[in-house]
């Protein structure tokens, strides 16, 4: 193939988009519910995940982990382990990490396996010829410790909380507003430690060739992951390549490089052969990240007409010493509801527990359900219908900053959702509707998730035969990246999607922001759009017209009354466009968020305390929807994640040493098929947000989770007449109140 003709288009998002370019294209494939192009591979078991396609000669690793919560490792029965069958090495290397990197760190997390900060922390790695031998030797490991567990801080109640000044804010006088208000609530809620529980355990296969590392891993953000891994190993980032073609779920647990990646790379280097490490499910629970538990105090007050006059939201969260991340619980509180008197508090406790990291929608996932449940309590106190109460309190502008919203569709989502759900049939008096042993109730919640953009680059190549190749290091963790990037390129280049091939998940490809924070599709998608636009410019030049006059459809190039086959116009050339989108000033002047509303009907057994979610429906506005099918599935997944949060999911930490008492999928309960009803999901297909990016699309992957649990507890309150302020609402808590 001849050298491609290279073209470039960079765009910094400083001004709102005025072109709405995708709406002017002719192919008609964007936004359609196209099937996932990788579907045939996934349903036939031929899509290849991290712990597969092992190179010949692969050895297997198993982590030895600390069984104290704090102290130092002073010895290990290494000699004994080395004599066990098949054992190749027992590795304790200063480059090993304490906990996985946080999303976007781009540098190594805390290193050194000798000092122990939490029970279950990897302290050594056993490598053997087979998986069974490595596991056996790993389980036979006995460490000696200098044990300072007596100084470990396990329970949040024992922790000293930091109060970082930048995370506190105050406007007006909330105390005075609370005193003067016609109605007020001052309530405390708590949410437990939770676990991502992606179906694919964290795994990595590493091998070195000519001083360069290749690592098959299960990661979400390859550009920063390669930097984290290189930094941990002490090598140049050019010496590291990470492959994550398919990722078996992430939910934030694979945002940063983890033990398996660093450990496999070190072991492969020492042994001079490939090494595979797949974390055992227990290790996934205890040695990756968790979502921090939260304690939240919410104060709300309103006048006699139900207009909010004050809102206070304080959150107590935790993490390991020295970790920058803390669950940003109050993130959406600053702008969702009106009220001139406002207080935000954010306090971070340092615990000797498995580190806390981002789990699907860090912040809003636990913050919105709680503020929304408190809103529900206040609406009840004020005697105003919960839908009407929320509609009265949607602010005109961001009440914390005075900045306008880029777009605010919250009221539309609430109104449309209420209508579709049949909200008018809601039991007016809590605890009044009964079907035999079952108490029936309706609840709703506003759904809020901030919108972000991340710097991303992609390469799109038009080949002489009129097919296109899309390449970026973006990942598809089930979110639909393969689908939407294919559709964007197909739309921009006027090609049927079958003529577009999308290659992702290779850190050698142009860097994207990766999958995290619901930025992936909009950011990497914008870079693909820009790359394709650069190609359109070249095609227009060859047709002797302006790009605006160019129509591309079904592999033909049309300018005015001239129509040519794309392959003719290419005339044997390959055109390679590189597109880059960068964050800019557009996000400074306006508050950006995705919006939604969810409605729920529950049945609560007065005999067993069981809560059944009978109906769950949602309406969502997230700018342009890139693929109606994958977007709907993301919303469905988020809502079901919320069912788990409301009713099932809780990590129980042993109060003595912090270990996970439920560290597997039988004891940590995620929703199963029978827990889930059919769902009504409506996407506002006409929504656009010109401030977000050139595609006018916003984040949707996390959105639907951000409030679901609120809708469910509000429905439980309507069914039973009792408020439940401790998540999850398990049978024991229900029975205690029902008597």
């Amino acid at each position, binding site marked *: 193939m001849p050298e491609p003709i290279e073209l470039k288009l960079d765009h910094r998002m400083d001004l709102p988009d005025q072109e709405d370019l995708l709406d002017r294209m002719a192919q008609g494939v964007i936004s359609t519910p196209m*099937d*996932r192009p*990788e*579907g*045939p*591979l*996934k*349903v*036939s*078991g*031929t*899509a*290849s*995940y991290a*712990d*597969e396609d*092992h190179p010949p000669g692969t050895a297997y690793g198993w982590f030895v982990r600390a069984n104290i919560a704090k102290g130092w490792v002073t010895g290990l029965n290494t000699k004994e382990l080395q004599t066990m069958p098949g054992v190749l090495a027992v590795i304790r290397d200063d480059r090993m990490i304490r906990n996985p990197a946080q999303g976007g760190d781009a540098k190594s997390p805390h290193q050194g396996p000798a000092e122990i900060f939490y029970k279950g922390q990897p302290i050594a790695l056993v490598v053997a010829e*087979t*998986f*069974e*031998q490595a596991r056996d030797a790993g389980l036979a490991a006995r460490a000696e410790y200098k044990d300072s567990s007596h100084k470990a801080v396990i329970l949040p109640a024992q922790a000293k909380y930091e109060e970082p000044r930048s995370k506190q804010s105050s406007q007006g006088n909330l105390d005075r507003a609370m005193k003067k208000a016609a109605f007020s609530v001052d309530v405390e809620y708590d949410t437990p430690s939770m676990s*991502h529980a*992606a*179906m*694919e*355990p964290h795994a990595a296969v590493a091998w070195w060739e000519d001083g360069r590392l290749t690592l098959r891993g299960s990661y979400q953000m390859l550009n920063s992951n390669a930097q984290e891994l290189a930094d941990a190993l002490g090598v140049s980032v050019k010496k590291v390549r990470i492959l994550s073609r*398919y*990722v*078996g*779920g*992430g*939910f934030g647990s694979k945002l940063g490089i983890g033990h398996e990646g660093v450990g496999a790379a070190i072991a492969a280097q020492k042994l001079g052969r490939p090494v595979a490490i*797949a974390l*055992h*499910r227990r290790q996934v629970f205890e040695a990756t990240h968790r979502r921090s538990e939260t304690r939240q105090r919410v104060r709300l007050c309103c006048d006699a007409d139900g207009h909010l006059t004050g809102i206070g939201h304080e959150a107590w969260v935790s993490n390991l010493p020295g970790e920058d991340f803390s669950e940003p619980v109050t993130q959406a509180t600053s702008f969702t509801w009106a009220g001139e008197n406002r207080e935000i508090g954010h306090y971070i406790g340092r615990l000797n527990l498995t580190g806390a990291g981002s789990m699907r929608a860090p912040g809003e996932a636990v913050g919105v359900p709680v503020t929304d449940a408190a809103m529900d309590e206040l609406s009840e106190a004020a005697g105003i219908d919960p839908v009407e109460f929320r509609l009265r309190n949607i602010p005109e502008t961001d009440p914390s900053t005075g900045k306008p919203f880029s777009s605010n569709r919250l009221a539309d989502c609430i109104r449309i959702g209420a209508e579709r759900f049949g909200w008018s049939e809601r039991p007016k008096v809590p605890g009044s509707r009964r079907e035999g042993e079952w108490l029936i109730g309706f609840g709703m919640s506003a759904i809020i998730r901030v919108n972000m953009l991340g710097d991303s680059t992609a390469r799109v190549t038009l080949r002489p035969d009129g097919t296109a190749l899309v390449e970026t290091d973006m990942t598809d963790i*089930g*979110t*639909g990246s393969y689908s939407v990037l294919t559709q964007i390129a197909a739309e921009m280049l006027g090609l049927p999607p079958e003529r577009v091939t999308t290659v992702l998940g290779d850190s050698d490809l142009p860097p994207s922001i990766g999958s995290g924070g619901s930025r992936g599709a909009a950011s990497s998608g914008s870079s693909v759009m820009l790359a394709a636009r650069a190609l359109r410019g070249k095609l227009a030049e060859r047709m002797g017209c302006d790009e605006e006059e160019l129509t591309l459809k079904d592999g033909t190039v049309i300018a005015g009354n001239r129509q040519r086959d794309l392959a003719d116009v290419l005339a044997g050339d390959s055109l390679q466009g590189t597109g880059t989108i960068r964050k800019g000033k557009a996000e400074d002047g306006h508050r950006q968020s995705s919006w939604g509303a969810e409605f729920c009907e529950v049945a609560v057994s007065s005999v067993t305390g069981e809560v059944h979610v009978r109906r769950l429906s949602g309406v969502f506005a997230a700018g342009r929807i890139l693929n109606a*099918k*994958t977007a*709907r*599935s*993301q919303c*469905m*997944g988020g*809502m*079901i*994640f919320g069912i788990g949060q409301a009713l099932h999911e809780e990590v129980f930490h042993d109060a003595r040493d912090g270990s996970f008492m439920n560290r*597997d*999928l*039988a004891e940590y309960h*995620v*929703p*199963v*098929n*029978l*827990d*889930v*009803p*059919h769902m009504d999901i409506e996407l506002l297909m006409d929504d656009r947000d010109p401030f977000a990016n050139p595609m006018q699309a916003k984040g949707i992957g996390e959105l639907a989770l951000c409030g679901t649990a609120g809708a469910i507890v509000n429905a439980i309150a309507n069914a039973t007449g009792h408020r439940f302020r401790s998540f999850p609402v398990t049978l024991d808590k229900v029975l205690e109140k029902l008597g």
Partner: protein
Amino acid sequence: MDVTLTVNGTPHVLEIDDPRVSLLDALRQRLDLTGTKKGCDHGQCGACTVIVNGRRINSCLTLAVMHEGDEITTIEGIGTPGDLAPLQQAFIRHDGFQCGYCTPGQIMSATAMLEELRQGWPSQVTGDLGSPALSDDEIRERMSGNLCRCSCYPNIVDAIREVAGKAAEGAA
């Protein structure tokens, strides 16, 4: 010791020198049939579901050496990317998966489950034990051993119901 497994119709003689090798690891590491997934290695998630002698089992909970002479069907034996079975096609059409990791197990489980239903096996939610009908709740209950953290459950039910419905029409 040598163990003969007939996998997707093809006999394989495996030299299993370690009795601790699970059927799952034998399939994945010795036969390179990595369509069968390891999610928990504990029989809790269903990602490793295969059909052995006509019944679905969690292949992580059984040892390879226990399956001398057994007939094993894995996802690779259900259909290939170029020649997909109706259930596989329906999973694509209804978006019955996202990350795809639990998907082979879901499809294996669904395949066996429809046969169980056809043979009249009752379940926890069956009202009339004599004749369980193909309802959404029957599908949900019988598929509840297969976790999907992306949570495509309603789409999985739609996919299974469509295929089962068509099969029933064909039979009638």
